[in-house]
């Protein structure tokens, strides 16, 4: 199957209907806007609402406050304890969603097959397993710090909202494996940047064990990014840089 889009009857451009477009442009001259204004007016409204807006959400209270006080976990005593917990929740949600996205990619593979230089089924399953293992590791970490791994933290919610379109692309039965890999590339880029940030936060908290675990996860994620980048390049017939 051709992984790239075919030539077809795309009707979105103005040149598809030159006469109708010209009539529209003539109409715009005849009927100009009835009120003054510019994009700056919208900016004013945005600012007015932003100034009175409430936060999207808050951090949950520690699930085991008593235990937490007894064990005096270093991470929650650090400089940015809430931020670390927020970002742990963010990574957990992202890795959980990532696991499901790779499951959907395996289905794309089964439906369409791969392409020259593209992933094998085992390649996709390998990444899937690592995403799941990261999710489980973060689950334990949050519990260890007295947090509730089932809670949606504010950063987890924002990343889910921002990444919503990635899942929509991959779940769409009309998209090919290559098109879906282009979508997962966005997730892998974000994932790499966020693991790096999480390691820095763990360093601030002086959590040496955690840093080692997170660095291993980042190694995996770098490998995922490298692989996906190479698969997409191969699918588009470009020269592969940074591939295997």
């Amino acid at each position, binding site marked *: 199957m051709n992984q790239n889009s075919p030539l077809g009857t795309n009707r979105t451009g103005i040149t598809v209907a030159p006469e109708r477009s010209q009539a529209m442009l003539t109409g715009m001259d005849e009927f100009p806007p009835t009120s003054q204004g510019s994009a700056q007016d919208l900016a004013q409204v945005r600012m007015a609402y932003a100034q009175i807006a409430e936060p999207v959400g808050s951090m949950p209270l520690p699930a085991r406050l008593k235990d937490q006080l007894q064990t005096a976990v270093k991470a929650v005593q650090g400089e940015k304890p809430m931020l670390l917990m927020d970002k742990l929740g963010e990574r957990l949600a992202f890795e959980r969603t990532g696991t499901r996205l790779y499951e959907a990619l395996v289905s794309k593979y089964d439906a369409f097959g791969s392409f020259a230089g593209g992933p094998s089924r085992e390649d996709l399953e390998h990444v899937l397993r690592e995403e799941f293992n990261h999710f489980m590791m973060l689950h334990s970490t949050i519990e260890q710090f007295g947090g509730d791994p089932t809670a*949606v933290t504010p950063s987890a*919610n924002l990343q889910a909202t921002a990444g919503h379109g990635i899942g929509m692309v991959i779940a769409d039965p009309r998209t090919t494996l290559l098109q879906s890999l282009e979508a997962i590339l966005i997730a892998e880029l974000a994932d790499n940047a966020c693991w790096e940030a999480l390691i820095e936060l763990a360093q601030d908290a002086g959590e040496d064990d955690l840093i080692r675990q997170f660095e291993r996860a980042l190694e995996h994620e770098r490998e995922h990014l490298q692989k996906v980048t190479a698969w997409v390049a191969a699918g588009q017939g470009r020269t592969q840089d940074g591939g295997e």
Partner: protein
Amino acid sequence: MALDLLKDNGVPLDKQRFTWKELVQPPFSKLDDDAFTRVRVILMNGLESEALRFSHACARMNGDLQLALAQVRRIEQHQHTLVNWLNPPDQSPLETTIGFEQVAIEVTASVAESEPDPYLAQVYRFGLLEDFDHMYRYAALMDRVEGKDANTLVQSYSDILPGRPTSLEHRDPSDDLRRDYRSHMNSEGSPSDTVSASYVWTPGTEMAAPARQSR
């Protein structure tokens, strides 16, 4: 002070106005607010939707009432907008749907508990079984497709349980009807019958003179 529909005189229609600021209220928080806030917003949104749907259908069939209904609808459309925009922008269609199923479960359970007629109570409990099933299926979809946990929205108030096997969910349309509903509801004449007792219908009257005169 609680609203008492029997004592409150209400606000005249021409005094019912919303400014843009009143229409666009801060949305509830998906993370911080109680699940029943979402339930209430969705339930009230449903009531407002039904009011508008009924009004449009009623206007099509009653020419004399068209102007009055249009005037009421303008206000109700604003109420509908106000309520619906309390849903936050970070709530996806699937998350809203989970909210709809929670409304279905909680409202149907409440109605079933207070229904004195055993047959109708059974009807509601049957509906409830299906609502649980819908909740379960949407929650599974959310987990499998988006990797999210529906209980973060439901907040452990409503069970997420499988209902009946899929094969039993498919019924003949005739099985959607409930017997002897009419024998219980308005069995001694409906309010609509009383109001329209003196009305004599002749073809064409809906869209004819009275409506034009009223304008």
